[in-house]
């Protein structure tokens, strides 16, 4: 008899309650042991004489410990968690959805529907993370803000029903307070872990060696971490059940989870501290799927197979049906393994390491960004690094549209605003070139509505082989022929950089470093999409010049 979603929700809630009490008890023990340790350090003479700490054992002392632990935790927690939504979203580079983009507008509509079905209990924002990986994250903070972040890769590949199921799952995490609890747990563990590290460092210098109390509260800390992970797994099942209750559609959630589990989930983009807030764990290794006792203990999420199995039983379908459907769509991978880079972001902080594909999806990345290769030490501009140059693509529109204020850099005629892959681009009627906003490039690459025709495919192959040959010659012989004069940006009229989209995909583009617009000549955008979709590459030489 398949378990209905209501039963699953009730069962998991009850277990979560019990385990949370145990967790609370453990927090107290850890604090107690920690303060014993501090007491030992602060009152070494008393300890060595009597083997105990002054005042320990008196109930007032215990109460004082509890009170001060709570106080410290509250302060730390307040500072770290009060604005967590803003901080987390900013660190992921998430942006507000674009109302003019067809798929983003659909996302906003779906979020409205979720608000209707939950009775508007809490206003939740949604943000889009410009990464080609597939994952969704939910954050809530003390100020009352709540947000769901969803990656472009996921947004562009899910159908309407599947997006709704994913959003319902994340919404339940927020509404049931899971996100708040997770933020609490993370901040509290942060204090203890930091203090233990400091004490351990001091303890090592002590002539008496490591005191058993250090071991004790290290053990307690590990146990409470394990318990917290257990709670987190039960929560995931409960959120799955709640998503089914909201949408009454277990099949679409199963399909969405299946799709996410087959693909890259952003392991290098989303920090490990945020892992508990995502819909599926970030690591790709197979141990999570085995579902054995040990792997079950050490993972923040239940095995995807088990989750999908429960949902499919509700929908009366088998996993074989899903597999057959999934074979039709290609998988997303983090990109060719190899060169990874650290890049200086807009806050002048080093971010990374990113692979070439991930660099491509960062909206602020430009040829003038400073980067360091993972294996190297020199800091240089992305423009000067041969392996980092290529990640800008643009999208062009088709058929009739609105006349925009931009003019074609080649023909000097007005550009027409057109829809392409459900987003807006500006095309020239005369030469067929396209002007695209650089932030829209990741989503255009992720979307697959545009067919890759024979003509485009063969043209693309010819172009990149030709460009590869020219590039190799240029490297061997040094800077040679004079190229045509640089185009000027249609918006700010500064000269645009002419560069390849990437060394893997040698399509020439012009990009304006000031206003983030990219210009593609005729067919270049389709060629680029075709190349990336089909992973066609010219024979490349990555050795240092």
């Amino acid at each position: 008899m398949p378990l209905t979603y209501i039963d699953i929700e009730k069962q998991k809630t009850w277990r979560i309650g019990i385990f949370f009490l145990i967790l609370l008890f453990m927090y107290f023990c850890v604090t107690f042991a920690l303060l014993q340790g501090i007491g030992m350090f602060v009152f070494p003479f008393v300890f060595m004489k009597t083997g105990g700490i002054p005042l320990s054992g008196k109930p007032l002392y215990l109460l004082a410990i509890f009170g001060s632990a709570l106080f410290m935790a509250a302060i730390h927690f307040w500072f770290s968690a009060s604005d967590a939504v803003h901080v987390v979203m900013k660190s992921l580079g998430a942006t507000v959805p674009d109302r003019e983009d067809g798929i983003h507008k659909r996302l906003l509509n779906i979020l409205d529907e979720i608000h209707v079905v939950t009775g508007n209990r809490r206003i939740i924002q949604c943000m889009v993370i410009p990464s080609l990986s597939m994952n969704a994250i939910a954050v809530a903070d003390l100020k009352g803000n709540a947000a769901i972040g969803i990656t472009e890769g996921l947004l562009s590949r899910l159908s309407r029903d599947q997006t709704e199921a994913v959003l319902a799952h994340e919404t339940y995490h927020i509404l049931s307070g899971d996100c708040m609890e997770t933020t609490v747990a993370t901040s509290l563990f942060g204090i203890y872990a930091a203090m233990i590290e400091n004490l351990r460092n001091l303890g090592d210098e002590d002539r008496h060696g490591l005191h058993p109390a250090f071991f004790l509260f290290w053990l307690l800390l590990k146990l409470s971490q394990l318990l917290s992970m257990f709670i987190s797994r039960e929560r995931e099942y409960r959120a799955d059940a709640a998503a089914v209750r909201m949408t009454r559609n277990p099949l679409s959630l199963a399909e969405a989870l299946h799709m996410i589990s087959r693909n890259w989930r952003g392991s290098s983009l989303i920090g490990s501290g945020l892992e508990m807030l995502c819909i599926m764990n970030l690591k790709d290794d197979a141990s999570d799927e085995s579902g054995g006792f040990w792997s079950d203990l050490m993972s923040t999420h239940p095995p995807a197979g088990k989750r999908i199995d429960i949902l499919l039983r509700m929908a009366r379908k088998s996993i074989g049906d899903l597999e057959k459907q999934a074979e039709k769509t290609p998988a997303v991978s983090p990109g060719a393994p190899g060169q990874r880079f650290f890049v200086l972001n807009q806050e002048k902080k080093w971010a990374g390491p990113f692979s070439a594909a991930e660099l491509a999806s960062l909206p602020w990345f430009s040829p003038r960004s400073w980067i360091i290769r993972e294996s190297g030490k020199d800091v240089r501009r992305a423009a000067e690094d041969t392996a980092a140059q290529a990640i800008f693509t643009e999208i062009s529109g088709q058929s009739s549209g609105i006349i925009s204020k931009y003019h074609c850099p080649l023909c000097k005629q007005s550009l027409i605003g057109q829809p392409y892959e459900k987003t807006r681009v500006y095309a020239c009627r005369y030469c067929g070139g396209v002007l695209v906003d650089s932030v829209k490039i990741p989503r255009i690459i992720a979307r697959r509505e545009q067919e890759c025709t024979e003509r485009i495919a063969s043209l693309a192959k010819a172009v990149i082989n030709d460009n590869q040959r020219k590039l190799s010659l240029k490297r061997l012989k040094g800077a040679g022929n004079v190229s045509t004069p640089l185009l000027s940006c249609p918006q700010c009229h500064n000269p645009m950089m002419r560069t390849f989209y990437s060394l893997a995909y040698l399509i020439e583009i012009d990009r304006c470093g000031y206003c983030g617009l990219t210009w593609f000549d005729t067919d270049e955008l389709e060629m680029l999409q075709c190349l990336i979709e089909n992973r066609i590459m010219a024979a490349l030489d990555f050795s240092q010049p």
Partner: protein
Amino acid sequence: MVGWILFALFVLFLFWMIYIYNSLVALTNDVKNAFTQIDVQLKRRHDLIPNLVSVVKGYMEYERDTLERVTSARTKALSAAGIHARAVAENMLTHALNGLFAVIENYPVLKSSENVLNLQEELASTENKIAFSRQLYNDLVANLATKRESFPNTIIAALFSFKKAEYFTAEETDRSLPPVDSGRQSG
């Protein structure tokens, strides 16, 4: 001594009664609110339809009767009175709209037009919201019924006459969906 205990018990009993009464009040109001929310979504659908009709009218010269059906169904839905009559009118409107969308499939220019796509998306979203608001209403009615009918609460509910709320059910005609009439077989 016994007097004090009895007094304490009586006070506890009073508090419990107040608590149950208040939660019944809250649930009843939730149900009323959810019922009006359905109307909000229905009205939004009424407002979107004239836009859609005006956009497609220019292209669909031979489909006048389909458009007529949609417009008249909308007028009937706006003017219907009473819950039952309104539910029937809204169903007719849904059928008429489905017919219109089926016909639009035959016009490739319309099918890829940005305006029509946006309107279709908005209408689909509104249909979903109507369904979700009905679902929420039914869930809240169930909550209220459970609270009213559980054992100690039945006393209070009867005492203060909290009324039962009606579920939103599908019409008998809905359960066996009629085939969508697309007017034309091929474009």
